[in-house]
């Protein structure tokens, strides 16, 4: 596999796999790299793995579909490098990656980023205590090793993922102490204006309603309109505190607390490439701007999947196919009759229910408590960021320079949006205007020894 590839696809989730198979179908040969040991991305993570029937049933039909897609991808003959991290992208394109502890670079004409999304960090007091993790991380444990917490878990936050996870957890015999639902009241009213347009996506919405009925039937303790959540404990979480809409403060013993406030596109690579981004009020995040074919404002750099705006797996696959067609066309190939309309129709179908889902689960906008750690790497609290903002009156990059917030190994993935939210509130500016950190390479940490291998010019894998 030392031959040159014109097209590099980063990420082997629904978008990356669909794009690769579409390109292969057009007679082109992309190279697909992915950090994980197996294809499937987050949604279909470890779907090739063997697991007991009970777990398989619990994970549900959407997950089961992944095994088929992964098999199709494997059989497509596309060049695929698992366990490979892209850590730098140079215009033009020169792509820097690491595999098996050594760095190498490749040049290519077009790059498709299908790097997906990350969970929005939930900075609340005590969220760094052992025993507190994200719903997404807990779901990874369930998918990869069928692990579930042996104690009843508290789940706090908002969005479809907590509901899905609760359903899966209950199905494999896990116990839920309670769901602290932070979704603002009045979801039906928010969703109504989008309902007619979502008619074509009614299948998704009906599926959601079915989940809700099941959860209620299962006797889930579901507290709505909860706020001021905090995790308490010395060495690890011992209790969870929250207030209910009647103003009552509650404190209950807790050994596991799972948090989730939605997902946001991974934008480090597109920020580092200086692509144009727009602020999405509906999703509370920056979204890279793309044209009808998924091309960013940087010529030849394409985007598909949740990285182009949160929309779920079916939309990711459709966007992957559209981006593949766009790349083929951009490289001078003719598209087969009908390929484009079919992909666009699939995308429209997959996106139909999204405005309703966004309206039901708006991004959090309450104040972050002063004592909540915002930057986990440098252990800086919201209060410290606010103080630095008052003192220096600077944007995210200046606050970073003054406080070291965002300078640690996570490179601002955990604190970027929190800093944006704090500074916007502090200065009375919009989130869009406040902006994000300037992203310094490498996009992922690289070991000194790994980078030194680049100099040795080792033959690329």
């Amino acid at each position, binding site marked *: 596999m030392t031959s040159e590839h014109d097209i590099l696809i980063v990420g082997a989730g629904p978008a990356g796999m669909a794009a690769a198979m579409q390109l292969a179908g057009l007679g082109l040969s992309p190279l697909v790299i992915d950090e994980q040991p197996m294809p499937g991305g987050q949604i279909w993570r470890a779907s090739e793995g063997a697991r007991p029937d009970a777990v398989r049933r619990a994970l549900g039909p959407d997950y089961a579909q992944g095994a088929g897609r992964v098999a199709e991808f494997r059989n497509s003959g596309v060049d695929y490098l698992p366990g490979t991290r892209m850590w730098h992208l140079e215009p033009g394109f020169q792509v820097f990656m690491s595999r098996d502890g050594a760095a190498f670079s490749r040049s290519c004409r077009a790059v498709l980023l299908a790097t997906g999304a990350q969970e929005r960090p939930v900075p609340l007091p005590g969220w760094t205590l052992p025993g507190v993790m994200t719903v997404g991380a807990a779901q990874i444990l369930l998918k990869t090793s069928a692990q579930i917490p042996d104690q009843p878990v508290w789940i706090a936050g908002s969005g479809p993922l907590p509901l899905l996870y609760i359903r899966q957890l209950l199905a494999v015999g896990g116990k839920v102490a309670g769901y602290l639902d932070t979704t603002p009241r009045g979801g039906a009213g928010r969703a109504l204006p989008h309902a007619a347009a979502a008619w074509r996506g009614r299948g998704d919405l009906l599926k959601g309603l079915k989940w809700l009925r099941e959860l209620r039937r299962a006797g889930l303790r579901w507290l709505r309109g909860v706020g001021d959540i905090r995790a308490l404990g010395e060495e690890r979480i011992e209790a969870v505190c929250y207030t209910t809409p009647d103003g009552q403060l509650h404190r209950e013993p807790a050994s596991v607390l799972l948090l989730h406030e939605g997902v946001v596109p991974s934008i480090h690579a597109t920020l580092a490439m200086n692509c144009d981004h727009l602020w999405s009020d509906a999703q509370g995040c920056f979204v890279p701007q793309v044209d009808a074919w998924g091309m960013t404002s940087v010529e030849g750099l394409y985007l598909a999947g949740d990285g182009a705006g949160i929309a779920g797996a079916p939309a990711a696959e459709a966007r992957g196919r559209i981006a593949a067609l766009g790349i083929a066309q951009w490289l001078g190939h003719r598209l087969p009759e009908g390929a484009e309309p079919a992909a666009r129709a699939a995308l429209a179908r997959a996106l139909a229910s999204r405005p309703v889902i966004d309206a039901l689960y708006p991004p959090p906008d309450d104040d972050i408590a002063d004592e909540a750690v915002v930057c986990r790497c440098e252990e800086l609290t919201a209060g410290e960021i606010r103080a630095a903002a008052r003192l220096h009156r600077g944007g995210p990059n200046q606050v970073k320079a003054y406080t070291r917030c965002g300078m640690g*190994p996570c490179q601002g993935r955990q604190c970027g949006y929190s800093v944006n939210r704090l500074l916007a509130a502090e200065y009375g500016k919009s989130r869009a205007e406040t902006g994000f950190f300037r992203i*310094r390479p490498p996009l992922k940490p690289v070991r000194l020894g790994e980078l030194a291998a*680049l100099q040795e010019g080792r033959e690329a894998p």
Partner: protein
Amino acid sequence: MTNPDILIVGGGLHGLSAALHLARCGASVTVLEGEFVGRHASGASAAGVRTLGRNPLEMPLSTISMDMWHDIAELVGDDCGFHAHGQLRVAETDAQIAAETQRIARLTAAGYDNETVIGQDQLRALVPGINPKFIGAAYAARDGAADPHRTLVAFRAAALRAGVTIREGAPVTGLCRRGGLWAATMPGGTVSAPQAINAAGAWGARIAALTGENIPLSAKASMMMVTERLARTIRPVVGIIGRSLSFKQSSQGTLVLGGGIQGRYDLDSGRTFMDFHALARGAMAATELMPSVSGARITRCWSGIEGKTQDLLPVICPARAEGLFHAFGFSGHGFQLVPAAGAAIAEMVITGIVPPTLQPFAADRFSQEGAAA
């Protein structure tokens, strides 16, 4: 609004230091900064406080500056994260040791006692874990390093306390002499003052050109790498003779690696671009110096644009035009000079006489050399 006495183009450390010293002498000063304070070379600095291996022409100024660093809180009210843990340049061969010994003997004869040659035992004591192939080093014990951001915050705050006005987001697009005043124009306004200082770093020649003066200047964008935090074992700043590497461990425990490995830059946009093939050479040198660090993860790399002259010495002198002074082109080793250069520039601006410490840095040395060639 009344005009200030002096306007300074450029809110890097040299502009801020000159502003601070001038304000302490009673002048009213306005600093005009195109983006934000410390945006380019000052904010991207490795913050080495080094006399080690310095050009002898800089030594008079550098020596004064070193004394000021040892008392930096006196000047700016904060220690700037400065620690005098020494700087080292390590040698692999006897021939390198011999050359360093000769160089330092010449330095001593000229009256400077800042450097000595040390053997392997002392080197291993100073740098635990160093590759045993390094047999000795040139060592400047009073040298050290500071924290660049703390230094910026401290100089900015001290300047503000002294009454300096700092205008950020004020890129100077025009500079001309009108009715005995320098008028600096920027989007949304003009600031005028009888005297002006061009402390615009890599853009210094462009500012000079606005007044019709041509000073040869190029630029550089030295790249830096920083790792995650490690247990703190290395105190001095370590370089290798003949190699582009400077290796230090910050007080936070991160390894900060630089040494003049060049990235690419664009003066018009102010953006810099990493060259990872070049940085890989630095990573290799670092793992050669200290094999145990090869597993340390690099978390950030950056670079800032700095002015570079033909002889790698700064331009600090009165301009051809009356009432204007230049102070730029520190060529990547200006951080240590900041406290003393600001004081000397203030003296030059106020008295109109170039102090001896600044005399090697006149801009006309380039045209004289040109004429001689």
